[in-house]
């Protein structure tokens, strides 16, 4: 369980990538938007294991690239995909969409 002062609880405007990775943020964002399309397809097909794989991948690298909010969503998405709770997965994918839209506005 994370502590309250952990990075993922900070506001989106305060999210910062690790030193040296700033220039990769835009590319990172675009790759995630592409994956979001894939997630929507997997959701329609009821493919929870593929949703789980993507969520697992996001957990591995979102934080260093300064996408703290997406890391938090990824954890929840992984858990719900594991439990095959597709309804909740749908809600989380929508949250991820909103988050990435906001992030795009900040990064661009």
């Amino acid at each position, binding site marked *: 369980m994370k502590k*309250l*002062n952990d990075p993922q609880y900070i506001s989106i405007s305060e999210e910062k990538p690790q030193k040296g990775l700033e220039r990769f943020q835009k590319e990172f964002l675009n790759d995630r938007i592409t994956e979001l399309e894939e997630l929507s397809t997997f959701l329609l097909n009821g493919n929870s294991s593929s949703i789980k794989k993507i969520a697992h991948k996001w957990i*591995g690298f979102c934080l260093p690239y300064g996408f703290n909010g997406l890391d938090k969503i990824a954890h929840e998405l992984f858990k719900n995909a594991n439990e095959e709770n597709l309804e909740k997965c749908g809600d989380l994918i929508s949250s991820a969409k909103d988050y990435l839209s906001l992030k795009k506005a900040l990064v661009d």
Partner: protein
Amino acid sequence: MSKGVIDYQINQERIRNLRSRFVIFSVIALAVIVLISFIAFNFHKNIILQQKSIRKIYKLLNKQQNAINQISSLGGLFDEEISSKEMISVQQQVKKSVSNLKSAGTELSSLILKNTSASLEDLEEYLIRKKIRSKIRNYTSHVKTLLNDSSTPAEIKKSIQYISQNSSDGDTEYINELIEIIDLEYKSGMKLIENMGLLIIFLCLLEILIAWIFLFRPLNSTVLAQNKELLESALKVESASRSKTDFLANISHEIRTPMTAILGYTEILQNQSELDRSKVDNAVSIINKNASHLLGLLDEVLDVSKMESSKFELIPEKINLSQLLNEVYSLINIKASEKKLNLIFSNLEAIPKYIYTDPKRLKQILFNIIGNAIKFTNDGYVKLTVKLEHNRKLCFEVVDTGCGIPKEKLKIIFEPFEQAYTAPNRQFAGTGLGLVLSRGLTRKMGGDLKVLSSELGKGSTFLITIDPGELGAHTLIDKLSTSITPSGISTIDHNEKPLNKKKILVVDDAKENARLFSMYLENSGAVVEVLNEGFSVVEIVKDRKFDLILLDLQMPGMDGYQVIKEIQKNGYTGKVSALTAHAMSEEIKKTKDYGFHAHITKPISSEKLIEKILLILG
């Protein structure tokens, strides 16, 4: 508390022993009683038969005596002038008496001969010795003379004289002697019966005594012992229930206090529309601190519960001991400084630089014990001394100059929910779980936690021992140095290149990770190669060796597990670490079972990654 309140097994064993003893004793006792009864019955029967015979003999002798007396009294009439009618009557009476005498004598002989009693054999011997039968024949022949019509007066007179002389002594003296003998025999028989009765009573008392010693007394002791145990366990249960009640009261307070702060400050934030930044930061900081404290408290309760239900697992790994102690020192020195106490960490002799244990739990134990020492010390110092014992156990001795622990509390402070001080003013707040948890952890780590000494008003000494794991050819450090390092700041000097020219292969299908780790490792001086799938790894290591391979587990095609299996099959002996977002203990165990040298969890900061790699490379 995994041991039952009553040792059920021991009691069951005791009851089984008692039961078998009872059965054996009952069988033996019954056999003995039957045997004694049989012997006594036979003996008694023989004596009774003998007494009956003696009574019969007595009657016969009396019959003989009466016959002789009758003859004696009638004998004198033969010499007197009596009518013939009277004479006939007298003769008939005498004949009858003679017949009685003879029949009694015959019956007596027959009785003596039939009876096998030893005393009656003596009687027969007496009769033979004294020639009683011939004397009786002699006597009766004289009586027959009186009855014989052809007897001369001189013969009659002679017979009368003989009869008169031998009626009470002489030939008939034997009767009195026999009666005396019989009387003695009778009395001796009665005495035997009396003694027999006493013997039987004695044997019964003896059996009762034996039954009491071998049966009732152990039964009584067992019942009393069980009663005592039941009472003790009832008291223990009652005490445990009271402790639980106290614990619930404590824990309720411990939870309410931070919850009050959290709710209070969130209400402030909610209600106040305009607060300056510093006040908001202060409120958030307080909420954060209290929430963390609450979380720690709940974790403690859960840990104790897991430990008691044996579901607790350690996650050991290779750790830098000096670094761990530094981290503990920096955090806990804050508390010591607040109370103006000296906090000293030192070592006696060289200690290993790296040990193999669960770092989170070791820190938990140290925080708990040193934290307690600081809590109960108002002035002076708290000192931690680290030592590697000859039996290869790593010892941490914590000495304080605090208030000490009362003697009566020393036995119970390691019990759940018990505390050394439970003053109503709650001067020393706590749940009463810290020590029981710490002891449970040290025991799981192959050691123990005990109080070496404690004196009221002077302080206490606690000793923590753990198994430091396989040290092998371990590096030792001579002097432990502690410095205050604020959390989040690495102990690695970034001006140096700690991974100086180490050849590291990063394998990850996600370019983001590959890019990230390459950057981290190259910044630390490593020579990095990147591959994005498993098959390439199998090929590349056929003729090349790396100082370390960081291998992602979840990859399309060939996953990390398949890769390590394949390269090890091909004889690759270099170090391979798993690099994965999975942090669960099952996954860590799985990677260990597959032969991974380490398990690194993503996401990971640059500093932590380099530290872990330095540990792996040794």
